[in-house]
């Protein structure tokens, strides 16, 4: 089984090198960084560290970047693709946990959930996260404790069935919607989150959460 790790990155020169090194140290050789139109050294650092760089000519959003990276990986021969954040908030040791249900064929899509152990997550983010998970459940009929998690793993077979349109943060809910609509098997596994001042400054803001909410609504009612 060929496993590829995709890192959607927008201006992540501070952390991307560390994340790639840590992936290599843990035995992951196929690393794809999607530079989502960064204006800093994200691309050059990633190449220097030995990752493949897919560079978007302009900023598409985390969803657009993830989709480009996943599709590229499957085209060049991946069997399983894992996406993790490039700000260093995910522990690469958790990749094993996330891909295990795919390897033993008990799921098609797996999501790493931060909500089994949300210690360190600011209260406002916990509330926002729950709200968006609840809305995703009401609108798409699929329950996830952490619908906004970027730590996901998907098989080639499942990816081929999905039609993901979203390009922003609503991508995470859009993927769950496709899991539901295409009758794919879904599992959640607990993951650890490394909260640093840097990783907290990244990710969704309150206004970002509101925008995501509006985008999910649009996707549900206007297609």
């Amino acid at each position, binding site marked *: 089984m060929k496993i590829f790790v995709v890192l959607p990155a927008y201006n992540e020169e501070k952390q991307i090198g560390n994340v790639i090194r840590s992936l290599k140290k843990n035995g992951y050789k196929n690393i794809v960084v*999607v530079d989502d139109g960064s204006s800093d050294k994200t691309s050059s650092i990633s190449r220097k560290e030995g990752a*493949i*760089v*897919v*560079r*978007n*000519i*302009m900023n*598409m959003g985390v969803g*657009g970047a993830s*989709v*480009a990276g996943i*599709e*590229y990986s499957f*085209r*060049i021969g991946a069997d399983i693709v894992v996406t993790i954040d490039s700000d260093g908030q995910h522990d690469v040791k958790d990749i094993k946990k996330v891909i295990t249900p795919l390897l033993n064929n008990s799921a098609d899509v797996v999501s790493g959930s931060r909500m089994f152990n949300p210690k360190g997550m600011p209260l406002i983010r916990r509330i926002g996260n729950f709200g968006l998970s609840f809305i995703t459940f009401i609108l798409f009929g699929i329950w996830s404790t952490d619908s906004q998690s970027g730590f996901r793993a998907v098989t080639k077979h499942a990816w081929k069935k999905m039609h993901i*349109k979203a*390009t922003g943060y609503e991508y995470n809910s859009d993927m769950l919607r496709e899991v539901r609509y295409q009758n794919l098997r879904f599992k959640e596994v607990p993951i650890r989150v490394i909260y640093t001042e840097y990783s907290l400054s990244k990710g969704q803001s309150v206004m970002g959460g509101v925008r995501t909410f509006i985008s999910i609504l649009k996707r549900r009612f*206007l*297609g």
Partner: protein
Amino acid sequence: MNIVQMLIIIFAVYAIVKVVLRLRDKSLSPVESFLWAILWVGVIFAAIFPNTLIELSNDLGLGKTLNMLVYLSILLLFYLVFRLYSALDKLDHRFNTLVKELSIERTIKRKKSK
């Protein structure tokens, strides 16, 4: 015929000419042109025979003619906004696919040339 009626008619004729021109250069489809033409012909008709409009709105129980016009205009606007939204969404999706494909193809090419 008063000056307002004449202005409305002139404007509507101008709009019809525009519709025909856009049909010719194929920026409007025949069906769309037809719908727009009907709308403007309706406007001309209402300007020439305002009484028929009053009778029609009375028959429909909508009271004053103006009310009916406002209702129809709002409906039309809603429809146009929806059309615009759909067109924009389609364009956005196409654009995203284009950027994505470009990024992927460029990466594959770069890898091959190494």
